[in-house]
């Protein structure tokens, strides 16, 4: 499935009249996912085949990461590549060799296609296969699309994992196993692993793993729990390989985390009493920590501009657990299938917008004057300058926010701008 960036045309429940907009968008492309993927898979290297724009995009979005050696780079296309004067295969071979010379410990190289490489129809799938043969198992090559004409922001991870799925070993075990899919911060992964162990659910494997050789097997006994709400294509690819998707809300907040864990517990037939005894204490902690933030958030109105596909689960959390009022919820892509666990928890009459017509949408925000608007980095300060408080959405992707013990932190990300406004007061001068 190579779904367009916009608009799956699947039928939707009448409760959610999803508006579609097809105008100017202000979103990152899928290459941006490399920022977290390259840190998560510690022996992988992401080689974008693209233009100087691609290189500049990633380093601008990840500009703060200069404290660590990057495991990504761009093979920047030159005039002669476009004019066909250079042989693309030779060029890729040369560049791949350079990467391997600099980072000999790398075990997987992702060849990531971009807008220009796709427009000129560079076949990275073929290239990956050829390079894989050249390096005969010493380095794996995997290709996927991170282009902005095909993917938006978090969809880059979806395409990456979808592509990786083809290479996962077959799980021929006759025992159930749980696959948690989607990049999670290390500390959150460890917490979930502990809880699953306490519940007696296992083996539990995380996808992607921290190393290329630890990628989980998949098979008909694999039960799939999505940790991130943007992995539709990956989920479908895993289903094609036999996995069964456990429908669940996403693990944001006490309620979301409980329901998410419950989905696995039900599948494993864990007794309610066990579930209760394992989750009661952390759930209570989460509820307490969220309650503290709710004092600030309750009754405040929040809008989302489309960005990360986290918008709908976050809106659910903020409305149900933090008592916020929901304004317009923009999302770059609305995927019915993977939101199945979320939709029943959303209130009637919610305004969901898929896609974007930026200027019109900003006009609606100005008119609604929400207390908080979640948006991309490019738009936040201009809205602030107009007197609107914003939450910079990329932080939501980079912060440990899933699970019980981060529920308070998640709510805190929304509280902070409001508290700051209260503390600093109205602006004087400038």
């Amino acid at each position, binding site marked *: 499935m190579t779904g367009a960036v916009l608009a799956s045309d699947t039928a939707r429940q009448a409760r959610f009249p999803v508006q579609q907009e097809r105008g100017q968008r202000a979103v990152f492309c899928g290459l941006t996912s490399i920022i977290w993927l390259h840190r998560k898979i510690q022996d992988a290297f992401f080689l974008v085949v693209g233009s100087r724009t691609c290189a500049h995009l990633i380093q601008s979005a990840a500009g703060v990461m200069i404290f660590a050696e990057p495991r990504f780079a761009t093979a920047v296309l030159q005039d002669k590549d476009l004019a066909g004067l250079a042989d693309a295969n030779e060029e890729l071979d040369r560049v791949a060799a350079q990467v391997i010379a600099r980072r000999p410990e790398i075990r997987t190289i992702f060849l990531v296609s971009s807008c220009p490489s796709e427009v000129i129809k560079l076949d990275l799938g073929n290239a990956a296969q050829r390079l894989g043969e050249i390096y005969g198992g010493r380095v794996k090559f995997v290709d996927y699309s991170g282009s902005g004409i095909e993917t938006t922001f978090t969809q880059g991870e979806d395409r990456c994992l979808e592509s990786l799925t083809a290479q996962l070993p077959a799980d021929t075990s006759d025992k159930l196993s749980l696959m948690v899919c989607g990049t999670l911060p290390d500390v959150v992964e460890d917490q979930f692993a502990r809880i699953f162990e306490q519940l007696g659910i296992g083996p539990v494997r995380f996808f992607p793993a921290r190393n290329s050789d630890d990628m989980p097997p998949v098979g008909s006994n694999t039960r799939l729990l999505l940790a991130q709400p943007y992995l539709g294509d990956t989920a479908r690819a895993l289903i094609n390989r036999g996995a069964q998707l456990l429908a669940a809300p996403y693990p944001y907040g006490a309620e979301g985390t409980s329901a998410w864990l419950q989905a696995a517990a039900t599948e494993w037939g864990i007794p309610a009493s066990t579930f209760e005894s394992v989750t009661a204490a952390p759930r209570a902690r989460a509820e307490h920590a969220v309650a503290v933030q709710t004092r600030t958030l309750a009754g405040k109105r929040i809008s989302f501009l489309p960005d990360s596909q986290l918008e709908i689960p976050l809106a659910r959390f903020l409305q149900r657990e933090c008592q916020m009022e929901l304004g317009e919820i923009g999302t770059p892509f609305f995927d019915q299938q993977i939101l199945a666990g979320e939709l029943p928890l959303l209130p009637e009459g919610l305004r969901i917008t898929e896609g974007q017509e930026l200027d019109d949408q900003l006009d609606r925000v100005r008119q609604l004057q929400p207390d908080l608007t979640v948006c991309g980095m490019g738009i936040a300060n201009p809205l602030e300058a107009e007197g609107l408080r914003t939450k910079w959405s990329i932080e939501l992707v980079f912060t440990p926010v899933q699970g019980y013990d981060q529920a308070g932190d998640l709510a805190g990300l929304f509280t902070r701008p409001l508290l*700051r406004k209260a503390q600093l007061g109205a602006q004087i001068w400038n």
Partner: protein
Amino acid sequence: MELTFWTYEGPPHVGAIRIANSMQGVHLLLHSPQGDTYADLLFTMIERNNHRPPVTYTTFQARDLGGSTAELVTDTLRKTVARFKPSLLMVGDSCTAEIIQDQPGALAEGAGLDIPVVPLEMLAYARKENWGASETFYSLVRALLVRQAPPAGAQRPERPEGKRPSVNLLGPSSLGFRCRDDIIEVRKLFDTIGVDINVTAPLGASPQDLMRIPEADANVCLYPEVADAACSWLQRTFKQPTIKTVPIGVGATADFLQEVADTLQLDISPQTADAVCRLPWYSRSVDSTYLTGKRVFIFADATHAIAAARIARDEMGFEVVGLGTFSREQARDVRAVAKEYGLEALITDNYAEVEKAATELQPEMLLGTQMERHIAKKLGIGCVVISTPAHVQDFPARYSPQMGFEGANVIFDTWVHPLMMGLEEHLLAMFREDFEFNDNATPSHLACVGGTGHRPEQDSVANGVAVWDSDAEKELKKIPFFVRGKARRNTEQYAAERGVASINVETLYEAKAHYSR
């Protein structure tokens, strides 16, 4: 005796030298042994003065004691006046000379010199540098102006119609923190509201300038540590009102202008609307959201400590977790401010006490002096110097005021500098286990200045606290270092309050939830 590892202030006579060195045509004769001449380097090396301070030391020695030291004073007096031809001579003694009681001031007054002589009493065993500066400045002002004093009860005449209002800027001094640039910035403020500066003193003033002080409509007490005594006397004697707000920070600058307007009966609103200050927008820019609630501990001279607290809370969005000063003379003011912040002020000139307080409070940053740099280094946290005592780097080449609107810009940049930025914090939190991340990561923009490798795991807060089990220790290490100390402290406190003997992972997260705010 008082055990002193580092001292926040020099002895009182150093304050006297600061006043002498601030002024034109003033010379100080200091009765003192040779070692006291080290004071020269404060001015020539720290402040990079291109001249020796106008001080002559008698440099008496052991063999001079018990006889010839008084003679040495009169001899030096004669030579000094002949060589330097000052328009005014101040005479004092340092700690050792104070004991031998030669009374150099009286000797000088009796020497029949044809220039004014101002004797100084420095109380070396009870007072310190800032007091010495204040007392010296006050003594000078009083000596030069006492004869001009109007009769008691006389009213100050109204400012003549059409005459521009004017003020004196009192307090800026040599070796004072950023005085050189503050007075330029304050002058700009007065320019924008049409007020003239009559006299700036002591910095740059001559004794003749001091004689003109009463001509101004008000005195601006820019640095109370140095100018408070003189301002009070001028207010009593010449009925000159004192403007007391110190314009450090955006809010304080606004209040300062308001106080000026009220005192001089001016209408200033239209002009000040043009002022350009970037702090408010920079602090409200979304990349500054991460500053919210950063725990800062402030210890400085009273003027800068009080100003810093207000900026920290109201303009940067920090949490002020501790506030103190070594300025005992201004302790009352600092205590009052601390109360507003729900704190008890730490009033001490004992470095060890400040170190102890900072260690217990586990702040994320210190706003202090050269001394607090030691403490910050030990604790592995950021530090910004906001007050004397300061080092040569704190006397920069570039324009670096603390006061006024550009001062607020300078403060924003300087305070943010040692901190990890928001997204950077998050990335560290997310990928702690990436082998290419470094736990001791310096803020990325500082990465290149190298590291101390010196970020000790902080000791537990108290003895007899709960023991951490190994899983909990491991989990704690997953927390980025810049909040780990606080997490450790909170967890141990939580455990202690509940009588928990062994801390496990649950305890860690229980405490986290408990202390969430």
